[in-house]
């Protein structure tokens, strides 16, 4: 080896701080990373091949397990794709219900992000607190859908069940609690904590140019000053009927990525409250046969999941199964930026930066 004082560290795929099964190959000199190479594929479960073997209605469980931290977003995306391809229209109530579920899931996903970011710089308590708050919403998802992590709530044409009686009161109660915690407790642990600030501010800066080069979307792009949110740019579901802001930060460092997500939780709470107020009566489901056939065509649908812009390219050939289903995952692009982002940072910071990307490997590897 030409560099005698270089150590090559193989971090992951099994490592307490690695998110899922990402593997990082770091060349370290002293305590500084000089070369980084992310390696993926440890959770490649062949979701795209399995899609070609399942009926359109039977693919929802697999979608759940793609981005398992925001499963409902995935379900909604797939449902929208199939409905667009098959020309199914869903009732207005269903769009509102889907908006509510998508935002609940977004809050839950961002809570996990906040917790794991805290854990990666050594604060285990923040992680457990975030899980505690997440459990409040988990109970609601459980009440509504019957499932926890993989709820299996959406189906072609709407939802499997209607909202149970009095769920809006539960949701509002939980949201109040979470808003209170996020505004007060989390600011004490994170934004007013000197150690946290010194560990995140100015660390892992992503410039606008870098974002555009790598094709990164979602909260990470918004933390670098790119004001793009598909919920605003091309409103789907009921997002054009509610009023919300898109939090944008300019610095592009780890701290901005944290703040963007923290503010997104508050925006999501706002959206859910409005949706609950406006929730119209009507059918929650359009009757669609279990086995549908979609004529030969290409469909491309993209939506804003909690991690960025998730898209599905669906090729159908007139049969009851997809001919080809390609998933466009946001963190697949974001993780590649690590090769540039991790150079010349300290080893300890490398983990915080990875956490700030918030990868979910199920979605990266598919």
């Amino acid at each position, binding site marked *: 080896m030409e560099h005698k004082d270089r150590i090559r560290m193989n971090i992951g795929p099994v490592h307490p701080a690695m998110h899922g099964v990402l593997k990082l190959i770091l060349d370290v000199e002293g305590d500084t990373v000089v070369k980084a190479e992310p390696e*993926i*594929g440890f959770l*490649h479960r*062949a979701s*795209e*091949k399995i899609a070609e073997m399942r009926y359109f209605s039977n693919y929802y469980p697999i979608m759940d397990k793609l981005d398992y931290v925001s499963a409902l977003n995935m379900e909604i995306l797939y449902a929208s794709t199939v409905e*667009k*391809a098959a020309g199914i229209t869903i009732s207005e109530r269903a769009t509102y219900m889907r908006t509510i579920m998508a935002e609940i899931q977004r809050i839950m996903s961002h809570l996990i992000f906040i917790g794991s970011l805290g854990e990666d710089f050594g604060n285990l308590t923040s992680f457990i607190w975030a899980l505690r708050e997440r459990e409040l919403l988990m109970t609601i998802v459980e009440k509504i859908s019957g499932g926890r992590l993989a709820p299996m709530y959406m189906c072609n044409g709407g939802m499997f069940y209607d909202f149970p009686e009095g769920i809006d009161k539960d949701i509002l109660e939980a949201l109040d609690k979470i808003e209170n915690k996020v505004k007060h407790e989390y600011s004490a642990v994170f934004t007013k904590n000197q150690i946290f600030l010194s560990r995140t501010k100015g660390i892992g800066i992503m410039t606008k140019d870098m974002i*555009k*080069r*790598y*094709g990164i979307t979602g909260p990470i*792009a918004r933390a670098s000053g*790119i004001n*793009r949110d*598909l919920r605003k*740019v*091309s409103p789907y579901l009921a997002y054009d009927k509610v009023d919300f802001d898109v939090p944008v930060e300019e610095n592009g460092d780890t701290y901005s990525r944290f703040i963007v997500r923290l503010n997104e939780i508050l925006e999501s709470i706002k959206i859910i409250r409005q949706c609950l107020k406006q929730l119209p009566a009507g059918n929650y489901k359009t009757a669609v046969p279990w086995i549908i056939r979609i004529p030969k*065509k*290409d*469909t*491309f649908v*993209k939506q804003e999941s909690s991690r960025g812009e998730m*898209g599905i*390219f669906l*090729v159908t050939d007139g049969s009851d199964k997809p*001919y*080809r289903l*390609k998933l*466009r995952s946001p963190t*697949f*692009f974001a993780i*590649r930026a690590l090769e540039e982002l991790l150079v010349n940072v300290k080893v300890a910071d490398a983990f915080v930066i990875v956490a700030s990307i918030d990868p979910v490997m199920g979605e990266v*590897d*598919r």
Partner: protein
Amino acid sequence: MENLSEKLIKEFNGKLDAIKGQNNLNIVALKNKKLIKKLSWEIKNYFDILYTLTVVDYSPVFELNYVFSNYENDDILIVKVNLDEKDLSIDSITDIFDSANWEEREAYDLFGIKFNGHPDLRRILLPEDWPGHPLRKSFEINDEVRHWTGLDLKF
């Protein structure tokens, strides 16, 4: 957006077909695969990133769907290129759209399509010693494939 695809079609007269009417997507079909780089340079004026690259196996023809997008608005452009089974290679567009890097590696991994000029064309999702390209329609998931663990186990 209509203007863009028309403009592109005019520029590449005869080499580019417009396909319209499918779910309001802007789709153009490129007849000659050697022009993909030239087209990409042209597209670079309007689009920031390669949004995704979808390969569809209509054996004996493989259809590549390049989806381009940009950050300013909602527009997307899909470029279809057909590759023959006998010559599964196409010029890489990584030097034009950097975001194509891993997408092309994935297409190489799962479909075995060679991208000429790609800086680092290796398998990305599957182990290096994996046999075959699983997302091709000809790939059969039999017991042998399912039970292959890549491990040398004694029991």
